[in-house]
């Protein structure tokens, strides 16, 4: 029986992209931290390995493009839900071309591609939180109203609500889904405020898991056959307080993933992959 909007967290494929050498110096960042390229690459390999080996996803790895220093953060280039992929128009000028490779990869996976062609629209995938029942789009430095509208048009089944991103780069810089109906949220004031707005805007009810570190709230939830609830989160080394909270999720398979280097260029865990559920496609 066909059913819609089920299978939240079910994925079969992941798209990742290698780290270009230009990341170390040229990638956009909100701090002035120095990135150790080698370590970053090592981290990324581990990340990819988790997806591929530990979780058994089919990983499509796109080659790095030196002219796109931020290209490792593939999440921003596309929003995939069900069998539809929206190719975004990233808010940062320098990142616009990241979508080309992404678009091609998604086409190869037989997804329905929707391109965001409106010149006035900007949208970073990092600002899009899909809860399984609806979308929240953070209006941030990178994402505007028009971008959100186009997203709403691409995913007509779902309510798309806009929420302000008062602090941090993206909406998902301080929140993410930790399970069906479970929002992981940072303890920061603006994060909490945004969460409250989300609550108000939603017809659905969510649980929240508050973690001490805003950035620590970014994690990847999956619901995989034979594995159940899986949560990729930052390591205790990075966010000890937050990890303690994650450890209370008894039903989840917790997989700490080191992300020390990419954080320096505002890269969170979700940023580095686009997850796809091909089974959902008829």
């Amino acid at each position, binding site marked *: *029986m*066909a*059913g*819609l*909007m089920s299978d939240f967290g079910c994925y079969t494929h992941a798209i990742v992209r290698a780290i270009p050498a230009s990341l170390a110096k040229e990638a956009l960042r909100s701090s002035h931290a120095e990135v150790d390229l080698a370590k970053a690459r090592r981290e990324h390999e581990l990340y990819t390995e988790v997806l591929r080996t530990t979780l058994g996803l089919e990983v499509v790895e796109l080659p790095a493009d030196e002219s796109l220093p931020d290209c490792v953060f593939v999440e921003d280039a596309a929003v995939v839900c*069900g*069998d*539809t992929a929206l190719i975004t128009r990233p808010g940062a000028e320098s990142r616009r071309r990241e979508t080309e490779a992404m678009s091609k990869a998604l086409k190869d996976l037989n997804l*329905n591609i929707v391109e965001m062609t409106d010149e006035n629209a900007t949208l970073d995938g990092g600002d899009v939180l899909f809860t399984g*029942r*609806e979308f929240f*789009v953070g*209006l941030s430095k990178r994402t*505007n*109203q*028009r971008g*959100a*509208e186009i997203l*709403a*048009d691409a*995913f*007509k*089944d*779902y*309510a*798309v*609500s*806009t*929420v*302000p991103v008062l602090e941090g780069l993206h909406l998902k810089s301080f929140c993410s889904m*930790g399970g069906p*109906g*479970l*929002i992981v*949220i940072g303890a920061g004031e603006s994060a909490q*405020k945004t*969460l*409250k*707005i*989300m*609550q*108000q*805007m*939603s*017809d659905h*009810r*969510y*649980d*929240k*898991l*508050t973690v001490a570190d805003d950035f620590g709230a970014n994690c990847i939830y999956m619901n995989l056959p034979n594995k159940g609830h899986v949560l990729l989160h930052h390591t205790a080394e990075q966010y000890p307080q937050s990890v303690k*909270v994650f450890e*209370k*999720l*008894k039903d989840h398979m917790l997989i700490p993933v080191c992300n020390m280097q990419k954080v320096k260029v505002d890269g969170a865990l979700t940023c580095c992959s686009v997850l796809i559920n091909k089974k959902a496609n*008829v």
Partner: protein
Amino acid sequence: MTTESGAASEAKQPQENKETEKGKAKAAAEPTSPQNQSEQLPAATGHSTPARKDQEQQEGDQVSHRSSTSRLSRSPLKGVKKTKIMECKVSLLDGSDFTLNVEKRAKGQVLFDKICDHLNLLEKDYYGITCRDVENQKNWLDPSKELKKQIRTGPWNFAFNVKFYPPDPSQLTEDITRYYLCQQLRDDVVSGRLPCSFATHTVLGSYTVQSELGDYDPEELGSDYISELRFAPNQTKELEEKVMELHKTYKGMTPAEAEMHFLENAKKLSMYGVDLHHAKLVGSLYECLAPAEGEDSEGVEIMLGVCSSGLLIYRDRLRINRFAWPKILKISYKRNNFYIKIRPGEFEQFESTIGFKLPNHRAAKRLWKVCVEHHTFFRLISPECQPKKFLSLGSKFRYSGRTQAQTRRASSMIIRPAPLFERSTSKRYNMSLSLDGAPIMENHETLMKDSAADGAAKIITKGDIITTVTTEKKAEEEKAEQDDAQTDAVETQEPTATTPLRHDTKTDSEQTDFAFDGDMTATESEADDDSEMRTQDTSPPEEMVKHQTSISELKRSFLETGESTPGMTEWEKRLSSSPARSPKAEEAPMIEPLELQDTKDEQPAGEKPSKEVEPKATEAAGYLVKYVVDSITTDLASSSGPHGISLSTTMDDDVFMDGTLREVDEVSERAETKVSPGAVRQEVFQAITDKKGTLIILKEADDKVDAEGKETSAAGEEKEPVIPEEAEAEEIEMLSTSKEIEYINEDTSVVVEAKTTARKMQSPKMEIKTDDMTQIKGTDSPKKAMASWIPEVVKTEASEVISVATKEVKQTKASDAMQQEEEIFTFEEVQTELPKSSPSQITVSGSSATSLEVSTLGWVSCSEKGPAEPEEKMAVATETEAAPAESTGPTGLDVVEVGTKEAPVVHTETKTTTYESAEADTNGDVDPGVLLSAQTITSETTSTTTTTHITKTVKGGISETRIEKRIVITGDTDIDHDQALAQAIKEAKEQHPDMSVTKVVVHKETEITPEEGED
């Protein structure tokens, strides 16, 4: 609604006959033609609605004019008058047209009932009739109003549509109901009103195909069978292929199953059941909105979406804000502006009003009405009573149908075998189905036959439904009042207060529903409930009779009593059986019956009590008694033990509730907690529904929920400042009343325990009240004391009527104190010794000596006052203050006669207005007081009937005399009722200079077209 009871039915008969012949000639096996029966059912239904009451009243009036012939039976020919018959063309959901004739004067309900009969639809409360206005906008027909008044111009063309989209269609009782819902949704999808993705189009389409065509069968269907069907606004070959692919996988799926799947998918769509209205923002965007950069939100084009959960605000396809019903304090419109007043919350300290500009006045009013209806249907247990102020301008519109809670309840009692019906294919869109009714009719007949088998039983069932509903109304009213009170309280409260409730919140709506149903079921199964039902059952016929009786008769019956004796007995038994109550039971019996009747018969009556009650917010140390209204509360309380019923008022911030996310920290505990709360809520809800009682909202911090404990205390404090809302200048109505259900739900966590207890106890609510009345003072704990007290308080405050009634009841059998309220003007003079009230606070000192100060709120506030009102109010208020609390028992029987013109007026509309002096409302004493005496005097003149109830009570050493006068003025349309009212008030004042007028309730039945109603 029920146009059919009494007089209306007469007129109807001829038509029915015609129709019967026409459509159902074949059926005819049953003497009791299906039609008749079906008519009855709706009629019954109608009883539940205010509209119906109006009618009843109307009828009553008519009768009186007619010299009171008793019309117990519907004499088929009696009503034959030359009536104009209009042909109506109704576009049904399958695209076919259904043509039928109705009287020109018929009300919307008549047409609606006929259509539903034709469709064999019993769960019809989700549906409605639309007609296009001059601007080609769809407007919902008001069932309680005449068709001719709603169709200004043009042919009588209508459309039958889903009005309230059930959030969980699986909870509909009958497949046929879902079938029509599917048809509506298909149209919504194909027309683009319900946007969905390609994938969804394929899924929905495939279920549609399975439902309409059955299993995939290439030989029979051919290869292109699908292109004849419409699935999407822009249907592509690709879509059709996908649909076919899916269709192939459904072999063996029944149509009903396919429809269920269809609905399960459709209901998840974000725009499911959202009624969109174009508007522009006025002023700046709501604070928490995220405006686009550098944009002035003023004048931005938006869409307002009304749905079951609240009001959604869209900008293009983006949701930019959402206001859940609990978050909305008031909805109003003025000219072409639409306003919502928002409860303070996380983001704002004070309540704020947001304005929207609609294209025109009609659009604003249309939106407002839809909001009122949705709010009532989905959030309230029973519809609100008529607007309270009629002197003021503004719409008196209210949703008069059944609420979702009521309709669910009613439909749970549907006992017919699942009707067979032919699913018309959407490809046959253009074929007329007008005669397709045949198969349906057959089913119908079958149904009828069954019923015929135990015809009486069936009727009873209907009666039950009705009764129940009616009862619920009371509850509603009370609730509404409570809501008001709560609302006020809420306002006061801190938004932030995190309540335990949040945890509860998690429950899905679906779950909730379940719980709900479960409760209902459970309830019904319970002996008590049944008994209630029966009692009520019995009564309905009586009601009918009463309607037919002349007013004077009504009054007598009121005095004497009547029917409900059996019910009484049962109640009494129950009471006696329950140890706690037994003491009170003795006294109680009287009370209960009254309430019952009230519930049943008269809204007006119900209103009064409830309203009066509402205002009171009691605070006792730590305990909040929000409002004790009637039976419901009582029930809960009683069963659980007084304390058991505590609803936490605090919970108000539904929004938060909804929105609240649970902390995961608590995860371990969650499962348990969540479940229980959810369940609990439901139960409570149900209980309330069933019993109709009002809620007593007590907050006990300590007892119930640990978590709440904090809140409670806080809440208590916060709540104290329950300030009556001031009527707003704006002319339009307010929804302030409404939030009850929500509260209830919220409260649930607390309540749960109580409820459980209650269930076990199964003691009737009525009893509880009785107890209260009785003044049970033996309380173990303060809490209990509170509980017991509270009810008392309520009663006391609520209406002298009640108290009076009680006494008399004993003697008489208590038939209906309430019934009397049919009168046009009700006057209550109350002399109370008010310890000058600190509004809203009830102080409980010691269990025994409890002085509760109850402040009356809101209802006054709720009602917007027209120009005229303010004055009166002021006057009243003044008097109140002036009036010395002490009052000795000047019991004067005053008959106020208001001279009226004699011409009989049939009122089509009933307006109820209540004026209360804000201060006066407060009945300071918690003490139930000892009832010294009560008497009722009735006098009549040609045009006026006055009933005076005098109650003397001693409370805490202070004697209080309350005089309630009900004055019925019958007269020409030209009578200046306002003047009459003023006169009556004046006279009353003169007669009792030492007393103060604390409340004035005006019921006004107006017939715009004199001929109506009568002939």
